[in-house]
């Protein structure tokens, strides 16, 4: 097969046990059905990870994928995906980040890593592929690891590293790219650690061509002209994340003390953004090929509250959301957590969920000082940082907590499972204040991670505009445009999730600015890059295949409808927010919502599974 433009055209396969390195051509069928990135990764995971493979065994495959627009001038096309069987959920795991686009220049769209090295190693994926000794960097944090690899190979390499958490097989360990960009969710860092793989360095000198350069650049330039118009004043002043802080707080999105309550608007006084900006010097940072630059480098001003801080940071919002759930408030504490989780290589959302659970279990005397080596667990920063550290190094009670929300709570027993707030084992978000496609997506997503499409309360003309933007027909729009929440939440969840997956497959960031563009524009760009005729409907069909592929993976692992449930606390306890009490989620209503979601997906609405015909269509060799 001739190489298709836009794609590198090759999959790299590395077995760390036998140290064998091979190349597999990327087939036209894979491209046609699943586009690339997260979509093709889902299919490769199904094909190459055996159903009985344990997540932390040599049989699991760590699969890297860079979509067809990655490596080009497409704005925001730096998003790459890592997929494997998740040690947190034991279902399919997946996480994305913006600093692995160099993979295309090494000549690969995807990399599959299986086996386990007999000593710590790191991979050099360049024009040549080498398995290199990493014994001298084992034990180092992600910043030190990156420095060591840069010293060895040069700073043109993108470096994906794990910290102590990944080495110690902490179930929610992350992979950190270039010191600050995280493949955070679903425990991909632990999979890497289980293979004795400390880092992956990527660069190369292979070129990426596009089918119609003139048309391609014309669309790229159009996008470049539009992007500045989409950056509002708040974004320019505060950057992504912090610009959303007020909105998240005001809509009840901040769980407090292990989801017992919700933090209210009073927190805006604690997290005064202007006070933060007064205490730091800040400069913007971008992912690969992104003209938005929503990330930051923060430097504490001398003599100020944050003196000594020197932190590259992806998103200021996540560490706030997660630390608050452990009762921690204040900029110094939150930014310390951001640095700590980054250097140790841990997912902020899941790890803080585990710490919050532990503190509550201590309060409820389900665990005692006998379990914690005499440590009193309280809602304060001393407990918080001690537990985060002890989880990373598996010290004391941290050795159990490192096994993730699901497994650790089962090990502790005595009713601890009730206090483990997770979706399929992955740390979750508050879902009781109001229903939205964003929140329902957290339940139904095969990976347990919530959707990256921020679809909350969009109704009326705004809803119609969104639906048209993603290429829905009049009939499809009609089917989603009414319901008690202003729109049909379960049906819309399907569409918003697939919108997010289109971007994930192409390699486009899911930042709200990139969500603004018509899908037909991305389809035109894909056609110009690859020479393959594509339209919005075609992109959505491919995204649905990829989503279904993930479902097929989970079905093979025994997933049933009950795995799409919510934490028990959400079904039995009300939550207070803004002086009002919100009832627990009604399980009958939830069942009805799931049934309608499955219908919209074309799944068996009773079982929540793919039909036999769809399964065959997707998985036949």
């Amino acid at each position, binding site marked *: 097969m001739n190489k298709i433009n836009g794609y590198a055209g090759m999959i790299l396969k590395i077995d760390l046990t036998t140290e064998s390195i091979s190349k597999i051509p990327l087939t036209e069928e894979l491209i046609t059905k699943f586009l690339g990135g997260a979509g093709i990764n889902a299919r490769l995971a199904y094909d190459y990870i055996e159903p009985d493979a344990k997540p932390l065994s040599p049989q699991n495959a760590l699969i890297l994928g860079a979509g067809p627009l990655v490596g080009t001038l497409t704005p925001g096309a730096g998003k790459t995906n890592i997929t494997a069987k998740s040690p947190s959920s034991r279902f399919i795991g997946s996480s994305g980040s913006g600093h692995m686009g160099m993979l295309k220049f090494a000549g690969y769209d995807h990399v599959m890593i299986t086996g386990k090295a007999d000593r710590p190693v790191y991979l050099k994926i360049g024009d040549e592929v080498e398995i290199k000794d990493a014994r001298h960097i084992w034990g180092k944090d992600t910043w030190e690891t990156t420095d060591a690899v840069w010293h060895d190979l040069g700073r043109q390499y993108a470096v994906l590293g794990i910290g102590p958490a990944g080495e110690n097989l902490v179930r929610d360990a992350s992979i950190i790219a270039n010191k600050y960009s995280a493949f955070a969710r679903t425990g991909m860092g632990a999979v890497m650690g289980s293979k004795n793989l400390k880092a992956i360095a990527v660069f190369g000198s292979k070129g990426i061509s596009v089918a119609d350069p003139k048309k391609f650049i014309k669309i790229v330039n159009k996008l470049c002209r539009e992007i500045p118009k989409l950056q509002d004043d708040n974004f320019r002043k505060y950057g992504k994340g912090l610009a959303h802080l007020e909105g998240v707080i005001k809509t009840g999105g901040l769980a407090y003390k292990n989801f017992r309550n919700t933090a209210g608007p009073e927190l805006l006084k604690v997290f005064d953004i202007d006070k933060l900006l007064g205490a730091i010097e800040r400069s913007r940072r971008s992912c690969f090929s992104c*003209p938005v630059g929503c990330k930051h480098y923060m430097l504490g001003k001398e003599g100020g509250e944050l003196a000594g801080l020197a932190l590259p940071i992806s998103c200021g919002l996540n560490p706030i959301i997660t630390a608050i759930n452990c009762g921690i408030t204040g900029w110094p504490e939150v930014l310390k957590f951001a640095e700590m989780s980054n250097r140790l290589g841990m997912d902020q959302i899941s790890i803080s969920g585990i710490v919050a659970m532990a503190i509550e279990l201590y309060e409820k005397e389900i665990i005692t000082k006998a379990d914690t080596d005499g440590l009193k667990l309280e809602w304060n920063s001393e407990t918080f940082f001690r537990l985060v550290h002890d989880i990373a190094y598996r010290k004391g009670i941290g050795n159990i907590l490192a096994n993730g929300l699901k497994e650790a709570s089962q090990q502790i027993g005595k009713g601890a499972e009730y206090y483990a707030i997770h979706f399929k084992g992955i740390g979750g978000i508050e879902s009781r204040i109001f229903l939205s496609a964003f929140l329902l997506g957290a339940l139904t997503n095969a990976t347990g991670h919530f959707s990256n499409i921020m679809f909350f309360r969009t109704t009326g003309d705004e809803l119609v505009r969104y639906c048209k933007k993603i290429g829905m027909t009049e009939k499809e729009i009609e089917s989603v445009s009414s319901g008690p929440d202003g729109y049909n939440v379960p049906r819309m969840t399907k569409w918003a999730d697939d919108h997010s997956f289109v971007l994930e497959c192409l390699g486009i960031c899911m930042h709200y600015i990139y969500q603004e563009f018509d899908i037909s524009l991305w389809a035109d760009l894909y056609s110009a890059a690859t020479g393959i005729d594509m339209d919005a409907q075609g992109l959505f069909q491919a995204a649905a295949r990829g989503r279904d592929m993930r479902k097929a993976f989970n079905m093979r692992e025994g997933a049933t409808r009950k795995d799409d449930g919510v934490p028990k606390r959400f079904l039995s306890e009300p939550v207070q927010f803004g002086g009002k009490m919100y009832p627990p989620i009604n399980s009958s209503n939830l069942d009805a919502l799931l049934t309608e979601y499955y219908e919209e997906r074309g799944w068996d609405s009773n079982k929540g599974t793919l039909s036999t015909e769809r399964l065959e269509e997707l998985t036949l060799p």
Partner: protein
Amino acid sequence: MSKKKNGRITIAPDLCTGCLRCALACSFFTSPEKTFNLSNSRITVLPGYDLRQFEIAFKDACDQCGICVQYCEFGALNRKKNTDKIIEEKHETGVADE
């Protein structure tokens, strides 16, 4: 004296975000076959070890055409206005649409 030594493209490393779009654009527009390839770019952008700033440099082959300036959205690369005409001429013969 080379065009580069005239210093017509100025670098403000404190404004660089590390997106590498300058290098992507350079590799594409300066290659006859129009491919993206950072190794062929005439501008290099490397992260500092502490990530506080990026190190930006032009290779000897750089003829200061200015395409990197056009694709820098952050003001890290600039050129004096009296040389803007060169960019326009470049685009008339290249594949850029404007």
